[in-house]
């Protein structure tokens, strides 16, 4: 089973990298970009028997720092 795990900064957490990317898009002449938030995406190949609980554990214990980040799991 393939998983895609998206890790994004929580709303309200400042994202200086996203702001720099936003600025660079403006420098390239792209107009109308209201905001940019940078995040991470992990692709995992896991055994079909992997439980939701285990996937949640992987996210909470390592892939995301839940002090500052949210995560979302997609099953491919």
């Amino acid at each position: 089973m393939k998983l895609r795990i998206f890790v994004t900064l929580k709303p309200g957490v400042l994202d200086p990298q996203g702001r720099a990317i936003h600025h660079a898009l403006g420098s390239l002449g792209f107009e109308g970009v209201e905001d940019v938030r940078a995040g991470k995406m992990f692709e995992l190949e896991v055994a079909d028997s992997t439980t939701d609980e285990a996937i949640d554990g992987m996210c909470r214990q390592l892939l995301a720092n839940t002090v500052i980040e949210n995560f979302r799991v997609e099953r491919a």
Partner: protein
Amino acid sequence: MKTAVIVFPGSNCDRDLAVALEAVTGVKPMMVWHADTELPQGIGFVAVPGGFSYGDYLRSGAIAARSPIMRAVVEQAGRGLPVFGVCNGFQVLTEAGLLPGALMRNAGLNFVCRDVALTVDNAQTAFTSRYDAGETLSVPVAHHDGNYFADAETLDRLEGEGRVAFRYGEAVNGSARNIAGIVNTAGNVLGMMPHPERKIETAHGGTDGRRLFEGVLETVGA
């Protein structure tokens, strides 16, 4: 008393800490490899050094915080062992859950490497007893991810409980409430971004960092 410095792949301030600890205690610290599962017997003080453990992969300090030796450090810290994390070591301690909050990319996005003004916020912690409250020190920083973040409730609690040991006396990295170093609830764990181990001898351009080690090592009976 024996002291220990944890060494991860990518640590680069472990020897600075070892020199500082030997200068203060007169005894070379034990260098403990990340893959070890136990701290050596009789260790009374553990330092987690700066650097780029595991290449800062995933998040600064994230992989190191899950290494075998950190399980032992977390367990011993829970029993009151003094633990000091500097720079990447601070990031490791937050990722390991020993200290609240997180260290994010500097607000200005630049790697900041210079001496900064550091104010002693609470001089009654085990680590700051040789300083005066409100005293301003000059201590170097060298980091890319030093922007301290915690939610407002946590920040209020840290301040209310006197757990902010050090604050920046100037704008450095965007840290919430200019927090540069905090202790845990029990007061036996300190994490800070600036490098006191780099201000130990006059040849370093100052000795403002030395009293941190003298104070905490005296407290634990070095």
